[in-house]
């Protein structure tokens, strides 16, 4: 593995290895909760919490986990933190917890988290794993914010609940519905690929 500086370790999650646009991981929650910016943001924060703490725990006890049962151990660690997040959200942010519904428990099976444990935390030091988790989380949150902003502005004419489009604007209801999620993400992926091709051909 090439040695990266701490800064590069963080930045790679933002673009080069962005979990959504480049690795196509964790698409289920991405599509499901991005009908409003606040939901997307809450989902991003909840997932980041689980990712960061799971990475910390896995990287600090990696020598104790026998490799045959590592996946099961990771899942138990992740599920523990998801339960904590789920309870905290239900207690302190009941409206958001309601609107996210069963998608909060679903963080357990978010492939970004398990993927980072298997690919990174189980092989790297605690500090590096923390930086990696922070970078990946930021990349995930940014992607969720882009997607949910587009969908909320076009679908309801609002941003975080505030009216941003003029009275002439007729909301595109479809953007709030499932088809809008698929189509917006499809177009964003194509744009991301095009940007990547452009920068590659220039280099």
């Amino acid at each position: 593995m090439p040695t990266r500086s701490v800064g590069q370790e963080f930045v790679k999650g933002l673009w080069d290895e962005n979990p959504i646009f480049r690795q196509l991981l964790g698409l289920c929650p991405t599509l499901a909760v991005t009908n409003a910016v606040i939901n997307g943001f809450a989902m991003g924060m909840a997932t980041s919490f689980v990712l960061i703490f799971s990475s910390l725990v896995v990287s600090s006890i990696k020598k104790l986990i026998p490799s045959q049962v590592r996946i099961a151990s990771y899942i138990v660690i992740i599920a523990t933190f998801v339960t904590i997040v789920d309870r905290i959200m239900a207690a302190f942010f009941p409206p958001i917890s309601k609107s996210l519904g069963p998608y909060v428990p679903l963080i357990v099976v978010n492939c970004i988290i398990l993927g980072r444990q298997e690919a990174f935390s189980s092989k790297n030091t605690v500090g590096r794993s923390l930086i990696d988790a922070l970078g990946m989380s930021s990349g995930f949150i940014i992607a969720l914010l882009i997607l949910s902003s587009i969908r909320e502005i076009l679908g309801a004419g609002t941003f975080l609940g505030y009216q941003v489009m003029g009275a002439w604007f007729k909301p595109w209801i479809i953007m709030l519905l499932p088809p809008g999620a698929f189509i917006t993400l499809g177009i964003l992926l194509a744009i991301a690929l095009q940007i990547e091709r452009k920068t590659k051909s220039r280099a």
Partner: protein
Amino acid sequence: MELVAIFISAILINNFVLHYFLGICPFLGVSKKIDSALSMGLAVTFVMTITAVVSWVINHWILMPHGLDYLQIVSFILVIASLVQLVEMFIRKISPPLYQALGIYLPLITTNCAIFFLALMAALRNYGFVQSVIFGFGSGLGFTLAIILMAGIREQLEMADVPEPFKGAAITLIVAGIMALAFFGFSGMIK
């Protein structure tokens, strides 16, 4: 009548892939050929039905009587992981050809969020035993339907002239969006 409603709604109206966005990874990854899509769909249906049975038993006989509802997340995911392992061993023993056909798709089902969501949803909606099983089976069939339709379309797309950046995942997602739109046509079927 209510059972029929659960069944139809799980397949067509609240389709797991097109309405709840579940199982997108296999939906994108295994929908290149109709054969493999069908195998994946059947494996998922199989595991979903069994998961519905086992998670109902655990939830109603172990967790609920002891007030341990908050352990649902941990226990369901463990049940699913061990269930997939068991099913894999079972199929390898009784039907090697089927095991060959399913190949790597079987272990992959563990990380399929649709299965986990099924267990949670059945618990959340307080389904009875029969309802849970019907719900699990119907959801599995709904997944199979969506992935086979997608595989059929993608086989045709091979021939089409898709703009370079849209190739692969992007065009597949857009097609899924149009399919989800078409599935809205079913939404009036059950009140």
